[in-house]
């Protein structure tokens, strides 16, 4: 593996009751987070391909960690998202290099299919910075019940020369969706939107 990982974190958030209503089966969201060394901290580097290769490795690793933590088959994954926080020795473009060119394909393999855009967020931050990882349905971006976000935060990262990379996967939408829009049983799953 090209990626120098210091720490891996996997969280599962299961909601059983919301506003007094029983959620059955519970909604479950997983987020897997890697704290990695930023090879370009402290200097300007024109070619960011190394970070994109790191993104490919992390798309697979973190996507699989989420599916494993949810204890589901890849095909049961319903929504996903990704995010990165760059420590102060790096630049915002480093997050873009990890997230956008190569992370998506191996993540889609980990969750099977994935016709829709993987929604993303990025920022610069210090130790304990939180980032809200956006979530959208993996096969049809317009599914309104699955628009959500999950917070990712590592108390001791990112240090200045590190990047925090998060991938989130769920097996469900929000606990009590009732604002209409495209429903998951109406998905065609061809164009990534509907």
């Amino acid at each position: 593996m090209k990626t120098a990982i210091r720490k891996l974190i996997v969280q599962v958030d299961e909601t059983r009751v919301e506003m007094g209503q029983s959620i059955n089966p519970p909604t479950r969201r997983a987020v897997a987070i890697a704290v990695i060394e930023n090879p370009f901290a402290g200097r300007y580097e024109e070619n960011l391909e190394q970070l994109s290769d790191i993104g490919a490795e992390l798309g697979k690793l973190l996507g699989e960690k989420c599916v494993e933590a949810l204890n589901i088959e890849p095909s049961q994954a319903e929504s996903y998202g990704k995010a990165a926080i760059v420590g102060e020795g790096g630049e915002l473009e480093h997050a873009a290099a990890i997230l956008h060119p190569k992370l998506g394909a191996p993540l889609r393999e980990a969750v099977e299919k994935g016709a829709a855009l993987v929604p993303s967020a990025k920022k610069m931050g210090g130790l304990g910075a939180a980032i809200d990882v956006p979530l959208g349905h993996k096969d049809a971006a317009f599914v309104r019940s699955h628009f959500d976000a999950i917070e990712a935060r590592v108390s001791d990262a990112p240090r200045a020369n590190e990047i925090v990379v998060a991938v989130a996967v769920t097996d469900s939408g929000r606990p009590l969706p009732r604002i209409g829009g495209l429903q998951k049983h109406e998905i065609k799953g061809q164009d990534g939107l509907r």
Partner: protein
Amino acid sequence: MSLIQIRRVFTHVETILHEFGPAPAKPQIRGAVAAVLANPYAGEYHADILPMMEALNPVGLEMVNTLLSAMRMQPEDINSYGKGSIVGSAGELEHGALWHVPGGYAMRELLGWHGDRAGYTQGTGQSQNSAQATPANHSVGNAETNTAGKPGTAAPPRSRPLAIVPSTKKVGAPGATLDVPLTHITASYVRSHFDAMEVSVPGAPAADELVFILVMSTGARVHARVGGLAPECISQFDGQR
């Protein structure tokens, strides 16, 4: 309303490969489980809150199993532990204290302790005596079985989780963080295992909620090197040394 309503269950597992020093052969795995419960005593003073302590016993057991499963660990892999609670703003600190017995003893029991939980609930239990009075056929490891029933030899532990489960608690807002202390499960003074894990559940506790937390770790801080009592030098089996 029932005294127990679990609204959310949150697990958090960290694999710590290194902290810029030489990576150990096996990474340290630390995990936390947090249950978000409705606080049945929120909003007013209740003199008698002990019924909830009793009702929490099965919650504690479920949480230990959830955490071991999330960590993909067996009880014998766990070497340090801790617990904590965060009380939402319509509750009082004392509600957080309800977690001491059902959280701590659930974890100790499922990790192999055979002491007298009922005695502890009443505040009369003796850690050393109850541990050493346990029959050999309840012991969990070969080392214990082999030396059982030989008075006068260095007293072997009848079970590993002899140490008090360290804890923190506070009243906090949704998303509040709690630094949950970790210490060695057999001897509190093992210096390499003094640690803490920051735990927070985004969005919880709401004013009328309680967050109860258990944490466990496979071992020492990843680059522990400040001396003190080492796990292989535990000799008193009194929960401390």
